[in-house]
């Protein structure tokens, strides 16, 4: 059970990171983490360290690129931006998640409706 749960989490986190970079442009790891927390209305209890695992993973697949630069308050930070391949992947993944959430919604609704005995 454990690993499949982790896979799902991994998958979602990667999409979240890609989407964040797609909308926000170039961003450092901390910025990405904060952005995701804000967007989710602090509903996700994010272990920020896992963001970095996700970043390494996405970089290995060639979906994001990285570069050292200066943050707005003059701190050195590594900035990530989405690549062309990453945009393509994001489009695919977004479609998949939307379809999945739609299906899940319908399935759960059906269970509620037909659940009377």
């Amino acid at each position, binding site marked *: 059970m454990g690993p499949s749960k982790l896979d799902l989490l991994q998958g979602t986190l990667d999409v979240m990171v890609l989407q964040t970079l797609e909308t926000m442009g170039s961003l450092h790891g901390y910025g990405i*983490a904060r952005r995701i927390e804000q967007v989710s209305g602090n509903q996700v209890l994010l*272990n920020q360290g*896992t963001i970095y*695992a996700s970043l*390494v993973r996405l970089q290995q*697949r060639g979906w994001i690129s990285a570069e050292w630069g200066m943050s707005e308050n003059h701190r*050195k*930070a590594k900035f990530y931006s989405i690549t062309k391949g990453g945009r393509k992947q994001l489009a695919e993944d977004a479609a998949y998640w939307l379809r999945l959430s739609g299906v899940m919604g319908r399935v759960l609704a059906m269970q509620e409706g037909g659940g009377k005995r």
Partner: protein
Amino acid sequence: MTSFRKSVHVFVARVLNFCRERQLDSDSTRELESHLQLHIDDNLRAGMSPKEARREALLKLGGFEQARQYCRDQRAFPFFEPFLQDLRFTFRSLRKSPGFTTVAILTLALGIGANTAIFTLINQVLLRKLAVRDPQQLVAFGDSIFGGIAGGIDLGGFGGYFPWDFAWQLEENPGPFQGIGAYGSFSSKVTVGQATAASSAEPSLLATASLVSGNYFAVLGAQALLGRTILPSDDATPGSGAVAVVSYHFWRQSLSSDPAIVGKSITINGVPFDVVGVMHEAFYGFKQELEPTDLWTPISMQPAVLQQPTMLVPHSGLYFLHIFGRLSPQAATSKSAFAESQNWLNQQVRLGIRANEGGSITPEREREIEHVSVPLVPAAHGVSLIRSQYGDSLKILMAVVGVVLLIACANLANSLLARGATRQREIATRLALGSSRARVVRQSLTETLLLSAVGSVLGLGLAFAATRALIAFVSQGKADITMSPAPNLAVMLFTLSVAFVTALLFGVAPAVIFARIGHRGSLNSSARTAQGGGGRSSRFWPKTLVTAQVMLSMLLLIGAGLLLRTLRNLQDQDYGFERTHLLLANFDESLARYQPHQAPALHQLLLERLSAIPGVRSVALSATPPISDGAWSSNISPAGYTPAPKENMVSILNRVSGKYFETAGISILAGRPITAADTASSLKVAVVSESIAKRYYPLGQAIGRNLTIGIDSVRGPWQIVGIARDTKSGNPRNTDPVRMTYIPLAQIDLFVPDQPGTPTSTANARPIAREENHDCYAGTILLRTTGDPAKTVADLRAAVAAIDPNLPLLDVKTIQDQVSNLIANDELISALMTLFSLLALLLAAIGLYGVMSYNVVQRTTEIGVRIALGAQLRTVLWMILRESLILLVIGVGLGLPLAVAATRGIRNQLFGLSAIDPVTFVSAIAVVSAIILLSTWLPARRATRVDPVVALRYE
């Protein structure tokens, strides 16, 4: 597809990461530090205290080290990590015992190197297929290994030799075959010159030329690299078609890789030929001889290439071609279709024989003809002299080196067991600390794999050197470019798998035994006694391995003994001529453009000048040396003897100058030898061997009788004036006396005598267009010297060059070299076999010594107690010795039947002794016993010196 590409991408990225892990690790550390800093900045801005800000940031990150580890895991191969740990651990532990490591690696390098070397040769000699299209469809017609020109034989009755007209007929009508081609059964030396440099000052070079049919290349399915191959139109008319295809190596070395060579002209034996093509590098022709073919020319040019009268007439009676065919695809795969092809060929051969013999064939002869068959021999590998000579030896050697490697494995397994026993506590600790048993086994296998990997790398190097030496030996000093010591892919794969299997063989047993140690839980301090006292079962494996080693090394010793004695028998037999102080040189007058009628003057000059060389006792010329692998032979008819029907009347012939018998050291038993006084103008005389005299004139009346020879050019009659001792003139393994007829070189007619009724002389009434007699040529110079014949070589060359600088001395060697070339195969295999069996014996001795020493160390306490309780030293000594005596007896007992079975396999290689030669068996057992006892004696003596006080103090 994309998901595959993605995983490749990820894999490559991870491998790259793996290589610069350190750099990436520091990069991610800096990144995480910057993350914390940014977070702390925010928190401070939100009004937290610096301490609180830092705590909150770290908490959110989920710990700094944890985050670093996430990245690390993501970057590399997590499953790799334990393996790397194993490897690091192995390196450390091997470095700690450099003695064991060195011995193990050297043992493996020797074992794997020997296997690789022999396999490199096997791969090239036995396994390599011809570099042509569908080689598995090729078949040779009969035995095509040897070559020559034969006369007066049946088609198919004499190996695989065929006359020109029969081959031509099959080429035109290949029946069920896709094609049938022919080639000269031997390649010959020719002089090649540049046609443009017409001046004779340009030194011409010697090359090897092969005659091939017009469809030879087409049937083989071989394409030219440049230009074209020889075509049927080239070979259509005897005497025309002066074209040549050259080999890649000849093109590179002698034609300086001239890219525009095609269309240029060269001369072969003075006759201009057009070069029409260059073959690929990997093409050596269908038949590979010791010296690779440089040029291929159409059979139609035979008179120019062989410098002999034409053989390209119907019913010439001369058999000089080999034939091969390409089976139909069905016949190559189905047995019945193959049988059909075979039947068709037999029909053709029988028709050919009937046509040859003309009208009246007796019913008896007809029945014989009905049984004539020429077998189709699969020839995907082509035909190779080296393969036929050395193939069996290589197979034997492969088995031998395999056995050596097995013995090496047993040794290493034993060493590892011993090491494992001393490492028991370490392993027990690891198991107790939660290491899995699989991990312990894996650790041990990592160790053996690492050892065998290093060993095989060294082994490859050793093999390269060894193979080079072996190839030099096999090709008898001729620059053989068809074999190379460089390992190819197949050899690499072989070595890799040998290394892997070796590692498993010597690694698995100890590994499993280590892992089992955990059951006993020997974490207590008495690990030593547990092993020493109750360890009877723990000594089972080492003992079994030593017994196997005894068995195998005895097997090898017996094999080596048999082969060594074979070689001794071959060398020590009576050859009938003197085998010391004799120098032989091959020369070829026809290549230096001497016409046969000019030969006698040259011979006279040679004899005079060479006898003036200091240290030369006598000089003679002859067609062939006293012993050689080629022979000039014919039927003879001794006057007054009526042969039985079908009686074999063949005698080997030699034409010799005066002093031949004196020079060669062949004694004359009766009458007189051939002398310088036997000249063209005196009575034609002959000397025959004892075997001829006894066979045809059993009452001793041979001298004074006449004898005629079945070859027109030297028909005779010759009057027998002397009887010479029997000599071995060919294969040293042949024990039957060889029939020899010697005739004086000076008495051979300069022109082929007219034979009444032969078509050649009746057709043309041209006056004195007589054919010169090529049998006037000598071919061998013999020098009997007072000192070391090898020291006369330079003088000989100088003297010949002084007579005619263009007269090529092809080969100069002593009679010992000549004999040893004929038994080269036996020399090679017995030398290597002895080497390998001594190596095996050494390994077995080291193994036993190791096991016994270890036993003594393990039993120190026990021995101490025994001595303290009053045991006699002799009893202790006997106790230790008895143990290995039992091993010895079991090993020999199991090894003997194995040896009897195995030596049957090398029966064909033996000479002058049986496969169960008692002398060899007894000596091998004695040697093995002596070595085993010696390697036990040393530790046993040490055991008797155990001081009981010291031994017991440990308890």
